[in-house]
């Protein structure tokens, strides 16, 4: 992960046309929305030098505004403030801490030369009042705000200087907030940031300011620097252990429990022994994370995800390229769903040259898949799953197999439904209980198994599928990630057929063992459709018996609602115990099914199927290999097969 972030960061540093400082912008959701979800505001104090007037205006805050006005946080600690965009109004108009009073004056004295310095000098002279104190201190002349009544600076004679400053600061803050409320209609609560512009030019438009901020921000993190070997590039340089400004906080220095010998933050002790980095590597990490956040983020199965491509070994001295990174990302995303798959196909047609290079490098390429949780408005960053070093050849295999299985679905059931079982589609086949934090792990572990070719326990997967069927049958939608549907019976049947295909997909990508071929005897007894399905699914004898039993239940169910609408309940489904059917109870169930076939006068049509089912069940019942849940699943598979075919043919007739 780190190596990939660094490589991406280095690539951005080498090729980026945007100043580094824009990567230091802090996107804090709390600055954008209040706790009721209302948008918050930025107040702009514009210095019109020609007219010698201050104009106030406001802007709703969003990510773009934060970037345009270069919100990088206030200066840390007790150092004089020097940011021209801040969340504290007194830093701009007055500041009782160290320095000359206002950030504008502080920065003026820190800049060596240039246009901004000249303008700030004029602003100091025209818009600021020098306070009648021994120390050189300034405050903004509020009378310069358009159309204001006069606000006078109080006398300082005979008053303690410190007390005088404190009182004046409070007065000045109140005065400007009153003016803002009157002029812009905003209360303090509605404002999260304040900034200045000079003749309508934003601070970020001044190169000197951008350079100054970059320099001070990086320097701030190197305040306690020490010499040593960088944990990233391995060179002996000036180092820092201060990682507080990483845009994604996967490494913190807040708790001493994480530091060597519990020594906390001290140069050459504690955290500096754990992870130290030089200026360049520090910058590369920030750039790398920013690039990933901006371009490589996506979501899968309702989980935030970064797809971080990299080269496993850099062959022939090849370096990362932006186009190559984005193709790799899209290549992985094309396994998510049909839309992404088609979009990728289209994309490679448009940029064949780039794709060619990507293909050449495929043997050496890999991606890290990084599922994370970062609640809005919080700096917390938790890794949910980290799937490391997924080789692109594996991704290619998954892509190809998804397409093969889709074609299998089409050949078995026609093209009416979308049989593309991408990774996103799998999310809707694995029940995830809402409100349980650990539940998402089921899905993420499954994704990991798919990408890293880890073996799966088929029985556990089948338990998920039976759970899925129960959601439809007992209408447990609100508790799960499965959407409420109009026709439970049809949707359950569809889902179960998709799970059949999913098992096939898992088999083809080597996660589970496949079954044997269909017993030859059945070829004379069963319809071609059924035979074909059993053969394609690779059912073994027990599975075939249950599938046929389920098929017969489907036949009875059809008779029970014949003439009714699709949503009518089928009493025969009550015969299935969705909590599991033991092998003993299978015999009872098959007997009951026999009776029902008689009762509905359809035994004659289904006699061959029943006899095939009975033959296989009796043959294997003494040494039945499947567990109770598997029994339910294969019965449901047969039921789903029958029901889907029935409904499809009815709908087909209706359409004609």
């Amino acid at each position, binding site marked *: 992960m780190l190596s990939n972030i660094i490589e991406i960061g280095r690539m951005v540093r080498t090729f980026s046309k945007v100043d580094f400082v824009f990567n230091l912008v802090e996107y804090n959701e709390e600055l954008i929305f209040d706790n009721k979800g209302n948008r918050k505001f930025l107040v702009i104090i514009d210095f019109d030098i020609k007219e010698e007037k201050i104009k106030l205006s406001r802007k709703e805050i969003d990510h773009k505004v934060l970037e345009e006005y270069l919100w990088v946080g206030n200066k840390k600690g007790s150092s004089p403030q020097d940011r021209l965009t801040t969340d504290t109004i007194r830093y701009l108009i007055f500041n009782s801490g160290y320095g000359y009073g206002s950030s504008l004056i502080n920065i003026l004295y820190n800049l060596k030369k240039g246009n901004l310095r000249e303008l700030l000098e004029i602003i100091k002279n025209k818009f600021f009042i020098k306070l009648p104190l021994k120390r050189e201190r300034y405050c903004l002349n509020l009378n310069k705000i358009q159309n204001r009544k006069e606000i006078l600076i109080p006398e300082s004679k005979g008053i303690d200087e410190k007390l005088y400053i404190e009182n004046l600061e409070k007065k000045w803050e109140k005065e400007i907030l009153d003016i803002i409320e009157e002029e812009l209609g905003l209360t303090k609560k509605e404002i999260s940031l304040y900034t200045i512009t000079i003749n309508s030019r934003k601070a970020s438009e001044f190169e000197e300011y951008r350079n100054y901020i970059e320099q001070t921000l990086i320097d701030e993190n190197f305040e306690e620097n020490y010499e040593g*070997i960088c*944990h990233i590039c391995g*060179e002996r340089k000036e180092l820092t252990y201060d990682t507080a400004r990483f845009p994604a906080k996967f490494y913190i220095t807040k*708790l001493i*429990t994480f530091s060597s010998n*519990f020594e906390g933050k001290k140069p050459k002790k504690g955290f500096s*022994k754990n992870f130290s980095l030089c200026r360049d590597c520090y910058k590369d990490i920030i750039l790398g994370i920013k690039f990933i956040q901006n371009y490589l983020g996506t979501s899968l199965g309702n989980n935030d995800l970064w797809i971080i491509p990299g080269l496993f*070994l850099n062959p022939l001295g090849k370096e990362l390229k932006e186009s190559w990174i984005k193709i790799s990302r899209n290549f992985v995303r094309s396994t998510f769903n049909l839309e992404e798959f088609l979009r990728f196909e289209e994309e490679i047609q448009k940029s064949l040259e780039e794709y060619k290079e990507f293909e050449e490098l495929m043997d050496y390429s890999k991606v890290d898949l990084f599922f994370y949780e970062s609640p809005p408005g919080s700096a917390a960053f938790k890794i949910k799953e980290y799937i490391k070093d997924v080789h692109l050849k594996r991704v290619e295999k998954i892509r190809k197999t998804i397409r093969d299985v889709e074609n299998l679905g089409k050949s078995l059931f026609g093209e009416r439904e979308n049989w593309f079982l991408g990774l996103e589609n799998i999310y809707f086949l694995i029940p995830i209980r809402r409100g349980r*934090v650990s539940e998402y792990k089921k899905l993420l572990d499954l994704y990991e198994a798919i990408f*890293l070719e880890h073996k799966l326990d088929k029985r556990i997967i089948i338990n998920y599928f039976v759970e899925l069927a129960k959601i439809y049958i007992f209408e447990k939608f609100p508790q799960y990630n499965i959407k409420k549907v109009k026709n439970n019976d049809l949707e359950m049947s569809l889902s179960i057929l998709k799970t059949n295909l999913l098992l096939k997909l898992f088999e083809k990508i080597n996660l589970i063992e496949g079954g044997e071929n269909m017993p030859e005897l059945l070829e004379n007894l069963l319809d071609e459709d059924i035979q074909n399905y059993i053969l394609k699914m690779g059912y073994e004898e027990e599975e075939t018996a249950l599938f046929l039993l389920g098929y017969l239940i489907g036949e009875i169910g059809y008779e029970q609602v014949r003439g009714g609408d699709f949503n009518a309940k089928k009493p025969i489904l009550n015969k299935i115990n969705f909590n599991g059917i033991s092998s003993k109870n299978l015999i009872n169930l098959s007997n009951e099914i026999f009776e029902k076939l008689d009762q509905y006068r359809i035994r004659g049509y289904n006699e061959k199927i029943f006899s095939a089912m009975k033959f296989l069940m009796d043959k294997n019942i003494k040494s039945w290999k499947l567990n109770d849940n598997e029994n339910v699943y294969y019965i449901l598979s047969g039921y789903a097969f029958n029901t889907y075919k029935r409904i499809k043919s009815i709908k087909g007739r209706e359409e004609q």
Partner: protein
Amino acid sequence: MRILVFDFYGKMAHFRKFYTNSSSLSYYFPPRTTIIGLIAGLLGYERDTYYELFSPENTKITLSIRSPLRKIIQMINYVWADDVKYLNASKGQHTQVPFEIIFPQNIKENVCYRIFFFHRNEDILNALEEKIKNYTFCFPPYLGVTEFVGNIEFVGKGSMEKNEENRVILDSIISVDYIKNRTINLETYPGAQYIKEKMPFSFDKYRMLKDPPREYIGEIKTSKIVLRGKIDYYKIKINESTIYNVVFMED
């Protein structure tokens, strides 16, 4: 040259990556610094006193991943202590940390690493051999965190000799630098899953990095790495029938 070979195993492992802590990711196999710590613990050296004794000049270490591996992430509670005085949990606050744990693919088996260890000082080799054979470790072994209690089993005393070939199936992990410097090709191998880890290599006596961190390639399913090119490696013979092809972490 004599070399000690022993297995280091347990039910699960966690070797925290140096650049993650608020979510703790793990390497698939222990870094060189961890193996040194393990050996120092077995021999009874005090904390932070042995880095120079086991410097790359004095030792040769490598390992073979003996069990197919996988990872899971589990949330665990950490004591919330931003000051030493809260280490006794008196603040009463906890923080939940996602914690990556290494497991064997087959949960009934163990996570197992076969360690190959050489030291210039024969006395150290003898002392270690005796401790391992008699199970008289000074500090008990663990796989990265003390909760993951481990065990050590003596495999044998081997002899090692240098060898050179154009294609080698390696039993050990290998550094990326080794591959790059010799322009060697990494071959794909059926069922193989190569992974790459960047990890610390050595400390000075103050436990600051002495050498740059290194990247290593390991194979987590078959434990075999196939190389093509001009490869100089070591053949380690424990007896006539047991031979391992290894490259040391220092090479």
